[in-house]
């Protein structure tokens, strides 16, 4: 099956369109259910935390809530943003910046009982270790960033 030059160009353009549509459809399929929503404890208290969906929970580690489990590598703690709190269970080595009273983002899933099971803990990377380039707006702006990032 040979084609004329003009038709061939049409065909190749069609192939390109297929590529574009294919990519878009594939992406949409992939994103539904695999993208992780960011939630605060208040969101979860208000019912906006979907059970079973990947989520990112952001807030502060409530002081006094950190409990080390007997296996030595799991911890339980509570993430709070003031009005609301969510209990979290995490099995793994926590980053050194993770401490009570500090900011945290936990990646994982919410279970039906309200427990958030975390696969990964991102301690708030203190980006204020930025050189003060006398009047550097970037450093100042960074010092405004908080837990939600």
């Amino acid at each position, binding site marked *: *099956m*040979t*084609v*004329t*030059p*003009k038709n*061939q*160009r049409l065909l*190749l*353009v069609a*192939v*390109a369109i*297929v*590529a*574009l549509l*294919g*990519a*878009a459809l*594939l*992406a949409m*399929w*992939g*994103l539904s259910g*695999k*993208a*992780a*929503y*960011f939630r605060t404890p208040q969101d979860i208290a208000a019912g906006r935390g979907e059970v079973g969906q*990947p989520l*990112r929970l952001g807030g502060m580690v409530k002081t006094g809530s950190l409990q*080390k489990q007997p*296996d*030595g*590598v799991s911890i339980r703690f509570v993430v709070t943003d003031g009005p609301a709190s969510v209990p979290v269970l995490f*099995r*793994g*080595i*926590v*980053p*050194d*910046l993770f401490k009570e009273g500090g900011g945290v983002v936990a*990646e994982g899933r919410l279970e039906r009982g309200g427990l958030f099971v975390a696969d990964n803990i991102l301690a708030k*990377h203190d980006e204020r*270790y*930025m*050189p003060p*380039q*006398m009047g*550097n*707006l*970037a*450093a100042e*702006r*960074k010092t405004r960033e908080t837990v*939600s*990032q």
Partner: protein
Amino acid sequence: MIAEAGLAALWLAAALALLQLGVAFAGPRIGGVRAIAVPAAVAQGLLTLFAFAALITLFVRTDLSVQLVAANSHSLKPFIYRFAGAWGNHEGSMLLWVTVLAVAGAALALLERRLPLDTIRATLGAQAALALGFFGFLLIASNPFARLNPAPPEGQGLNPLLQDPGLAFHPPTLYLGYVGLSVAFSLAVGALITRDVGPALARAMRPGVLGAWVLLTLGITAGSYWAYYELGWGGWWFWDPVENASLMPWLAATALLHSINVLAARGGLRAWTIMLAVVAFSMSMVGTFLVRSGILTSVHSFAVDPRRGTFILGLLVVYVGGALALFAWRIGTVREGACFNLVSREGALVANNLLLSVILGTVFVGTLYPIFVEALTGEKISVGPPYFNAVSGPLVLLLAVLLFVGPLLNWRIDRRPVLRRTIAPALVAVAALVATVALGPMSLLSRLGLSVAAGLTVASILPLIGRNLRRTPLATWGMALSHFGVAVAVAGAACDSAFTRETLTAVRPGESASVGPWTIRFAGVDPVAGPNWTAVQGHLVATRGATRNLFEPESRAFSDPQTQTNEAAIRTYLDGQLYTVLGRQESDGRWQLRLWWKPFVTLIWLGGSLIALGGTLALIGRWWRGWRQRVRAREAWA
């Protein structure tokens, strides 16, 4: 003095870029391509190299009167990291970017002789336009040579994460790759302007694209290995926005490379080649933008500033928007190439381009999706490995399967029962699939990955069978090697996913843990100290049969700035890697240990290196052939 000289060199180079652009615009009437534009391009290359050398000198000397040095360096840093510190920050790396751009432009001007003068003029004009914009960004918004008065007594920059050989030298490799693609971009734009797209253009683009692609492959492979051993999570690719920013140009460049071969050999795929050439460097620029604008946060981000981001976005709109608009406007009038049948080498390469473009598209969408969603609904989401792996995994496997048959096909039309030759690799793949059942439970993707890798190992050498090997061009060897490298890399990734064993536990000194076939005895910890850090060093004795090795992972605390890193202890064996990480001490005296046994994981990076090596062979082969042809032509004249 040096700083001012560097700055002056940059301004002069920018002025020359303006001159070069002027020559392009003035057109045939001035006729100054050889007399003006080429020397201007070469001078720009030399001047920016001088400026970059000046910056390096300032860093090595720790000249604290320069703001950038004061912010990012420290007199106590070892020499090699003072040197590399020049590009370990926004302004310095931007200067590196511009240096590579200018040097690539100089090479293009000096070495390209076969294209018609008009096309060269337009191309040099496009390159000059690129240079002008980035010079402007550097000089106006990211001056690396700004002074600091009074000079502080000591520098701020002793960030321990940057004091690592892999990390220090991986950016230049990547930049040479990314920015090297600018040559293809300029050639594409030049060809669109003069409507002169043909095999000659492809041959002009090929060496630059091949070279840039090899460097990108190496840079990405090295970056992946660095992240693997440094971050201590046992993973080798995180789909971090900055990693994606380096992957997208690579995907486009791979497709471009293959498309160029079609254009050079058969004159086909003109529109595709031009489009890919524009997309490849556009992806490089988009990547630079994403990393420096603060839109996407990542462990890699520099100290970012949305104002700089906006400037780069402006450049993007002009360059990418301009090139795409030019494409839309002019490509219709470029002659179509020769026809080909679906079952042909061209057809297979079109399928190859299709798959690579789809992967590129999905990575692009995934990386930017959070921004779109937040713009439209206000929701904050994050897109990570679950999405990217699910979507790109099957596509990569499809590509690998395509490789069974593609390289064997004839150009234009292949009426031979070519599928017969692919029976061998297909059988090997099926046999491997059956064999994986015996290897235990694993995900379907891993199973298919192992099978396809086995088949591709055989299929990649098929193009060499039945040929007179002594007369086979080096480029063909290169192709076989690169495709073989793909098989190796896929095998490594599949093994990592299928066979990795992990143990996470807390032990007291004297106790043991096991991971896979290994028994690890925890002997205890010792405090150790380095120049700017203190650490707790664990002592582990790993045993497997007769093998017995000592591992010493560390948990390091740096004082200035305060950070904590995990130095994993890794050892490579013939059949895998044992990877050990020390965690914290619990209040009851136990220490956390994270252990991985990763069979054949090093195949991933070995595969990447083989892919790059194949490309290098092709580059050498073509250069050698071109040189021999010129020698013979000269002899014919003599």
